[in-house]
């Protein structure tokens, strides 16, 4: 006769980062947010179609379109929505309290949110960029587009999380970062472009192509693996900044 097994009521606690990650996926992306992420991703496919309008070969045409349209517009906008969803929106809604008011170290909160957001970027923005290459008739560029968009969106999400820790107007400041600092100043100053996910992801993409258009090769910016390392450093610095800021945040409620 076997003993009557009692149901165990204790178990090893879920690691906090995993709990935060699961929460991020479940709670930070309501249907409207998904629509706001997928809309620019659909735009990437339109840019793929647009490449057919060019007289240049499919590979060169897609490279030109991707550099401006996908890495300069689609990727930052979709990543902005993701970055805002995982932190800024919660700060504004007053729901970050539930996470912040726990003994979880702030670095775990930042890390969990970043992994959650970056993973959404990797499964939405990067495949959209790869699909755009296929739609453009340049399947050989698909891998390069995927990798460049994945790395760029991962870095962007880290930056937008840091911005979310610094201001309640995350979307406004994130747009200012993309269009004023990266696009405007980054176009003129190589020093800024070297730290910009837009320019660096473009450099990763160009570096992985066999015969990229020469106008896309920018002097003074590392390409390929060098650019990936640069983006990893940018993401790490942004996350460290976010962690530091999270200690000093003033978390008012939604009504404030």
């Amino acid at each position, binding site marked *: 006769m076997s003993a009557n097994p009692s149901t*165990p*009521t*204790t*178990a*090893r*606690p*879920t690691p*906090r980062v*995993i*709990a*935060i990650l*699961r*929460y991020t996926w*479940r*709670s930070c*992306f*309501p249907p409207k947010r998904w629509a706001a992420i997928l809309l620019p991703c659909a735009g990437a496919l339109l840019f793929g179609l647009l490449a057919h309008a060019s007289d240049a070969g499919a590979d060169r045409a897609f490279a030109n379109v991707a550099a401006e349209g996908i890495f300069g517009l689609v990727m930052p906008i979709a990543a902005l929505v993701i970055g805002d969803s995982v932190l800024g929106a919660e700060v504004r*809604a*007053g*729901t970050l*309290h*539930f*996470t*912040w*008011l*726990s*003994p*979880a*170290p*702030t670095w775990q909160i930042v890390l969990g949110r970043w992994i959650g957001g970056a993973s959404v970027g990797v499964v939405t923005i990067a495949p959209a960029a790869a699909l755009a290459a296929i739609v453009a008739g340049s399947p050989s560029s698909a891998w390069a587009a995927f990798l460049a968009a994945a790395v760029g969106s991962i870095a962007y999400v880290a930056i937008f999380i840091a911005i979310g820790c610094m201001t309640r107007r995350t979307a406004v400041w994130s747009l200012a970062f993309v269009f004023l600092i990266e696009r405007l100043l980054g176009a003129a100053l190589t020093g800024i472009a070297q730290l910009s996910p837009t320019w660096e992801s473009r450099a990763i993409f160009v570096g992985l192509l066999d015969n990229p258009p020469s106008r896309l090769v920018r002097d003074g910016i590392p390409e390929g693996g060098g650019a990936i390392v640069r983006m990893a450093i940018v993401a790490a610095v942004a996350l460290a900044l976010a962690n530091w800021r999270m*200690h*000093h945040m*003033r*978390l*008012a*409620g*939604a*009504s*404030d």
Partner: protein
Amino acid sequence: MLLPPPVPRHDPAFATDPTVTVDGVSVWFGPKVALSELSCSFGPGVSGLLGPNGAGKTTLMRAITGLVGVNEGTVRVHQLDPRRDRGVHARMALVPEDEAVPAGLTARQFVRYVADLHRIADREAPDVALRTVDLFDVGDRQVDTFSKGMRQRTKVAAALVSGPDVLVLDEPLNGADPVQRAALIALFKRLGAEGRTVVVSSHVLNEVERMAERVIVLVHGRLAAAGGHRAIRDAMDETPRHVFVRSDGGRRLAASLVGLESVTGVTFDSKRDGLVIQTLQARELAVALPRLAKGASIRLLEVRPLDDSLESLFRELVR
């Protein structure tokens, strides 16, 4: 002959065995001062935080929990700074006033999440917490579809799941129906009786006096009064009140009123064609006025307190 040392008079703003101390705290948001040089403390049992809207109750609760840093002064919970020592959050919980709840989560998932953040090993803990607030049966419904009262109760469950010994509840009875209100009040009293520090805010005195032994009244970010709820009630009753009376014999009524002990002044309001009576004993006046009018064959057409809102009473307290 040596006299025994004088027994220090206990300041009702301070708990005898404090777990939460607020010392000279000022908080401002730009030009707006939310708390001004506030000092008080909270200990085991239920303490009420009373004040009109905008008095600084929510800011004080956010400062206690570390959500908001203070510009001046110090806040300590178990002698730790809640802004710096994140470990203190293992022993403290807040139920915020905001209706905001995480989207897309069921009540059970939400409470489970908070339990995971506190590394609670007991898998039953979320269900126990949901049962405590009578939400176990709807635990699989999404929190953002709940009514305001149910959301508040879910947040109470999330706060209780870690078994905190300091519980900060910002207007926790908002939106609750009378039955749930009674159940929550009983719960908070029980938690206080267990030796936990429970700080409950409200702008309704009746609510606070039903659950708190000690009340701290805030007005305009300052400490207005502190003590037992009876002392607060008496203080409020002793504040001058103004009552507007319109009748068909104003002058005769005024002459009769000045003879009443409860009346400290009578003025004629020509704009509204009536009398404004000032009294320190509103209850006595309420009894005496109809009798007086009946005796003098005067018809009372309108009797209306001019400053009976809680806000005006609170304001009187800080004059």
